[in-house]
Each structure stands twice: as C-alpha cells, then as structure tokens.
C-alpha cells in the first residue's frame, strides 16, 4: 500500500478528488451560475424590496407554516416507517403527496374546501382561498420529504440506545421524544430547510389559492410572476431582484439551521438496520390520519374527477376522459419522455449531490462551500424564472472553435437535453441536503478503519460509504424523480417540438382543456411514481 496516495482528509486520492470537483464545478458554472447570472443583468437591485414587505412577510409565514404542517405529518410517518415493517405498497405511498403536482392537489383542495360549495368547508376553520389553505396544501405536499428524512435518520441510529431506554422503563412515546427525535436532528433540520425553500419558491399553490383570495394574498413568487407578466420585456430585472431575495433565503436558511445544530455530534458507528418492532399501537392511528388527509382525500378526489361526467359532481361517471387522454399518441409519448428525463435527472442529481455532500462534510473548504451554495441556489428560485435564465443562456447556439478547424457546437434550445439539464440543476439541493445530513450522522471511524485495514478509496466507498448512504441516496433519487416527472413551470417555457412531457400535457389540460382530463394525467403520474417508489423502497442486498 502506498500511503502517499492518500491525503490527510477522509476523501479520495487527491488527484481524483480534485478532478471530480473541477468537473462538477464546471458543470455548475455553466448550468447554474451562467443562467442565474444572466437573469441579474440590469436587475433593479434590492431597492425593490421595501415595496414588497407584505409579500415578504406572507412568504415567511408561508414557510414557517408549511414547515410546521410538514413536520406534524412527516415525523410520525417517518418514525413508523423506520420502526415497523410496513407493506411495500404503503411505504411507496409515502412519496405520493410529493409526486402529485401541487397544481392538481390544489384543484382537489378547491373542490373540497372552496367557500361556496366545498365538501368539507363547514368542518374546517378556514377555506381554500386563504393563507391557512396555502399552508395546508404546501405542508402536506412536502411532508414526504420530512418523512423520508426521519425514516433514514432513524435507520442509522444504534438500536441499542432505544432498547436501553425501553429496558429502563421508558414508554415508547418517551423513547421517541427523548432519544429518537433528538438523534434525527440533522436529517430533520435538512428537511426543514428544504421545505422552507420549496415553500418560498412555490408558485402553483399561491397562484391558485392566494391570487383568488379576497383580497389576494401576495407572496414573493406571485410578485415575481406579476413582474414578468406585466412587462415581459422590462419586468425581468425586477423579477430577478425578487428572485435574488428568494435565493438568499434558500441559502441562508440551511446555514442558520446548521448554527442551531451547533457542534453536537450525531454520528453513529452502527452499520445495520434495527429490527422492526412488533405492535405499532397508537402510532398506526396517526399514520392512518395522515394517509387519509395527505394521500387518500386528494388523490381520491383526483381519481373521481378523472371519471366524472360533470366536474365537481358525483352524479355521473364515464371513462371517456381516460379514453381521450390515453388515446392520444402525444400523451403516451410524453409519458415515456418524462419517465426517461426524470430518471436521468435523478441519477445525475444524486451522483453530483452525493459527491459534493460527502466531500464538503469530510473536507470543508471555502471554495467547496461556495460550490454547495451554487448547487442549492436553483431550488430557491421559481421554476419559471430559472427557465428564463436557461433561455437567456442557451437559446443561441454556442460554438467553440479551435484554430479555425475544429468546432464543437452546443445547440440545446428546444431539445430534450435542455429539459433534462434544467431538471437536474433545479433539483440538486434535494440529494445534496439529504446525503449531507446522512454523512453528518456517519461516524468517520468506519471509513478510517477501512483505510487503515488497507482498503483503497474505491473499496472504502463501495464497501462502507455507499451502503450506509444508500438509503439517503435512494430517497433523494425518488424525490428528484417525483419532482422532475411532472414538472410544469420550466417545461412550459423550455419545450420544443417533439419534446412534450407530462407537465406540459397537464398544463394544457388545466389551461385549455378540462379538469377531468387533467386529472387523468395526474393519475398517470400517481401510478408511475408509485411504481418508482416500490423500486426504491426495496432494501439493497448489503443491508
């Protein structure tokens, strides 16, 4: 063994590590920094913000409220998934609220809770067109992120700690609040940061609920939307300024939360999953309630809408909507294309995010921190704004000419590649935050032991790091897949001929077609994401 091949840190041989990071840095510069940078040209600066205090205040309330609702639903679900053996269909269903596009769950929520004739309006203290309505929809939509984070965090905890508490007489509830939950802190904080950023950058829910409220409820994304719509030619600078505020929030929140975590060490040297517990008891009621509110009710409403003769009424059913949508070659093509693009985007995002996450946690440096901030930035920017950045950067053909003889040409505009790259760049924060929290929980001694015993860097990664990080990586893959599979905002602006995806089909149906046919498209999304969820909940052989 040649010890000089290893650097002082826990990372790879230096040359390989630096080459990988250089490649990732170059990709981030081209596909994140340049689009975002071009958006800022001519921007009005943060001077626009004082006039937007109401929008900023509402956005903060939306973030905090969504985090609260997501935690309320996600923590118990994640705990149950980690500690009891759930049927695989149920475990896949955890992802569903996140997979179904918010446009569609909002449509279901409007049917259920609009102030005029909503089915459940009389049972609720608020109706759909309110800040509480927006918080409820967003919080439930993002609760799977918390659930998966808690499940994976608890999966890494040494079961001896909880068993010792139980043997000493602690009740299951006491064990949960005093042992399990605190040890899940890094994962929870990462999930909270993610939920807050996603809520701040959300557009569909505020547009359908906030803009229709009386008076309308302004949030930053709606103000950005108005800036772009009011003056497509001159509104971009103001939109960029407001987006910058969102990016600042998206980058600042994780930093603040990491300060809250402090220097406490949550790492565990355990390398096997705990045995499932027997009786779930009262926890199963909590999960059942979440399943009903977050999964069955909205998806059931969408399913019924897809077969309803008259929108919003249950007095007649038909399969005509299904026949119409599935009979269109364009829909079938969009389904295949979306599946492929989402899978590719998820794979790239997890690969890049995991590499960055492991490296920054093991060898934190300022340049790496900047790279991580850059990778996280697109998630905080509304999809339509980020898409405009892509148009600014890549609508022209880019030709790199060497010595007047060799030309490399990059013509992305209107291609599926443009969509795939946009999905990847937008979703990098998902696996980055999740894997980073997992690495933080991983005791360094495991990797060090492997190297001291003679394992190469590659062997250490394959035999030690990957198996322990795989739950977080797989969860990240599933979340990126779900987010990209039916992405709407970017797809509508970036698509070209023959590159139709499910998101654009859904947008067409919602904007120009019928809610029933839009619901059919939404049900296709549910089916595919359930299938993807089944694949990702299978445990790898090494666990």
């Amino acid at each position, binding site marked *: 063994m040649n010890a000089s091949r290893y650097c002082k840190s826990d990372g790879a041989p230096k040359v390989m590590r630096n080459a990988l990071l250089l490649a990732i840095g170059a990709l981030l510069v081209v596909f994140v920094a340049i689009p975002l940078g*071009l958006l800022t040209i001519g921007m009005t600066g943060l001077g626009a913000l004082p006039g937007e205090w109401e929008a900023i205040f509402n956005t903060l309330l939306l973030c905090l409220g969504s985090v609260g609702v997501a935690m309320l639903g996600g923590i118990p679900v994640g705990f149950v998934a980690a500690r009891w053996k759930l049927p695989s269909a149920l475990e896949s269903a955890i992802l569903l609220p996140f997979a179904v596009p918010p446009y569609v769950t909002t449509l279901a929520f*409007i*049917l259920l809770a*609009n102030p*005029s*004739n909503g089915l459940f309006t009389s049972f609720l203290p608020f109706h759909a067109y309110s800040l509480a309505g927006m918080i409820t929809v967003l919080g439930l939509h993002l609760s799977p992120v918390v659930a998966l984070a808690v499940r994976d965090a608890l999966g890494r905890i040494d079961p001896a700690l909880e068993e010792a508490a139980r043997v000493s007489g602690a009740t299951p509830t006491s064990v949960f609040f005093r042992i399990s939950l605190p040890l899940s802190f890094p994962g929870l904080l990462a999930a909270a940061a993610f939920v807050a950023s996603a809520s701040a950058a959300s557009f569909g829910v505020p547009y*359908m609920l906030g*803009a*229709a409220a*009386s*008076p*309308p409820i302004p949030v930053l994304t709606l103000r950005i*939307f*108005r800036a*772009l*719509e*009011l*003056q*497509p*030619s001159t509104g*971009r600078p103001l939109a960029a300024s407001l987006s910058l505020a969102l990016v600042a929030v998206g980058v600042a929140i994780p930093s603040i939360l990491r300060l809250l975590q402090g220097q406490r060490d949550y790492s565990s040297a355990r390398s096997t999953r705990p045995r499932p517990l027997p009786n779930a008891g009262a926890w199963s009621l909590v999960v059942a309630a979440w399943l009903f509110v977050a999964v069955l009710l909205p998806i059931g409403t969408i399913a019924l809408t897809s077969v309803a003769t*008259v*929108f*919003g*009424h249950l007095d007649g059913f038909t399969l005509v909507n299904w026949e119409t949508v599935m009979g269109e070659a*364009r829909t079938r093509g969009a389904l295949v294309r979306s599946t492929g693009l989402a899978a590719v985007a998820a794979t790239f995002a997890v690969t890049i995010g995991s590499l960055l996450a492991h490296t920054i946690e093991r060898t934190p440096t300022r340049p790496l921190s900047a790279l991580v901030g850059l990778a996280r930035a697109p998630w905080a920017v509304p999809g*339509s704004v980020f898409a*405009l950045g892509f*148009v*600014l*950067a890549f*609508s*022209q*053909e*880019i*030709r*790199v*000419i*060497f*010595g007047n003889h060799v030309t490399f040409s990059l*013509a992305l*505009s*209107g291609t599926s590649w443009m969509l795939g790259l946009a999905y990847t760049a937008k979703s990098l924060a998902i696996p980055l935050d999740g894997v980073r929290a997992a690495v933080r929980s991983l005791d360094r001694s495991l990797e060090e032991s492997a190297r001291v015993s003679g394992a190469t860097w590659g062997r250490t990664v394959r035999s030690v790091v990957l198996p322990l990080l795989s739950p977080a990586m797989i969860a990240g893959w599933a979340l990126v897949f779900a987010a990209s599979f039916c992405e709407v905002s970017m797809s*509508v*602006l970036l*698509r*070209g*001929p023959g590159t139709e995806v499910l998101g654009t089909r859904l947008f*067409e149906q*919602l*904007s*120009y*077609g*019928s*809610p029933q046919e839009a619901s059919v498209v939404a049900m296709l999304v549910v089916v595919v994401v359930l299938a993807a969820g089944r694949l990702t909940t299978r445990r790898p052989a090494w666990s």
Partner: protein
Amino acid sequence: MLLFALIACRVEFGPSDQRVADGRPTVWIYTALYQEQVDAFGAAVRKELPDIDVQWFQGGSEKVAQRWEAEHAAGASPACVLLTSDPSWYVDLTERGLLREYVPPLALQLPRDWVEPTFVTTRVDLMVIGVRPGAKGPASFHELADPAFVGQWSSGDPFSSGTNFTTVSALDQKYGQEFLESLDANGWMMAGGNSAVLGRIESAERPIGVVLLNNLLLKPGVADIVFPSDGAVPIPGPAAIPTDCREVEAAERVEDWLLGPTAQALVVHSRMHSPFTGAPAPEGAPPLDAIRLMDLGDDFIGTTAARAVDLRERLTVLQK
C-alpha cells in the same frame, strides 16, 4: 496542452442554421392557439406549403411573450411569426421597432379595424358571459355589479391572460374606474384562465363567468351563452413578423396562408370567428356581424396598449 487549447479557441454565439437538411427554410410560429388547433393548422400548412418547414412553439400569450423577449434579449429569437391573443403586446413591439411592416394582400379585404402596418388580425374571439344551466345570470357586463350577483361570478386573471386583460381594458374604457371598483365590491374573483372560469361554472363554485365564446362552444352544455346587451368584447388574434426573423420571404408566405381560405376554415372549425365580413360562423354561434360588439371607439387596441401599465397598476391597488 489545456492552456494551449484555451488560447487557440474562440467562442461564438448565434442562432442555429434555420434551414433543414433539404434546404427548406424553417419558419417558427410562436402561438397561443390551443394544441389541438396547432395540430390542425400544422397538418394543413405542411400540405399547402410543403417547401417551408413550419415549426410551432405553443403556450399562453404571456408565456410566448416571456420566451420571445428572453430569446430576443439573448441575441435573437428564431420566431418568424407571432400569433397570440394580446394585441397590446404587438403595439408595444411596434413602438420598439421590433416588427416588420407587412400587409398580406388578402388583408385589404378585411375591415380597417383589423389591419395595422405591422400586424393583422387572423381570427376574432369574443368575451361573453357564461351561466350555469338553471342559474339566473346578468344580461350585460354592467349588471355584474348588481348586488343580486354578489360572489356568484368570476373572470380569468387579467395579469396572466391576454384575453382577460383586453376585456378588463374594454370595461375600463367604457365604464371607467368606478365601475371596476363596483365589480370588486361585488365579489369579483379574477383567477386562472378561461378554462378555470368554465371549471368554476361547471362545479357551481361560481355559476356565472366572464369567458371566451370559444371555450363555451368547445364544451357545449356546460354553460348557457349570454351575448351581453352592452356588447361582447372582441379579442383580435394578430399575426406579425418580428425583425429578428431571418426567413422573411417564407414568413410572409405563412402569414398570407393564415388569411387564406384553408386557415380561415380552420379558424371557424376551431369555434372562432373569421375577421372577414360575410365569413361563415362557428358552429353554435351567430355570424360576427349579427353579434352586438361593445362600442370601444376607433383605436381600442392602441388605447389598450397606451393605458396597459396604468390599468395593471390600478388593478393591483384595487386588489389590496
């Protein structure tokens, strides 16, 4: 070696070659037509202009404008024909010198109101009132301010829908700011697009809606059509050739085609009105000259464009 490569290279930006492999010019049409309409128009133009490769980008008027403006800011847009539903954008582009002057020969047969030196109306849609069957509805736009209809009606979002903005501008020009305030006081919900309005009528959430005739004709039975007694609002669908276009001759031929008999028959088949006098009406609707149109003066589009920013700001204040 890397340094040498970097020194020896140069980077160029520019539009892609807009000719396909067989040498045919490519004409990009950026349109707000619905996708089914694009499919029909696309098939027809491929058949009648086989020597031109026509490609389409389809989105709402605002999405088309955003994409085009971003591409133009990046250097040049490949769009050679703009075919949306927000006439005030075309006035704005004309004032900025970004549209070519071109009047198709057939445009000389159109009423004068539908023809400008830089853009021409290829189709006319009408904003009317839709009422859920069995519900009582207003007979005019003015009656929407009647307390009998408080909280019962909705329109699309004028900030995101060109057709709805044109309608609000028409009401503003005809009745003034006070009328808009009275509508707001009467529970005016402005949200989503025309399909969302129709959805609210269908689900009975808001059984009355200000909605495009086209949407009502495409989904018969969802709502009864009320042609307002104070006049339906005409929404022209202009076509124009931007100065960015590099295949001007081909673009002019496409614009000529859009006013030709095949395209106009498709307009009517798509449940919209042709701008030509005496043209057949879409199925389920009377001819254009039999419908009372709102009297908006000689230069409605120009006035709409001139007052657009002011109106949007007043609407923003109104909503607070």
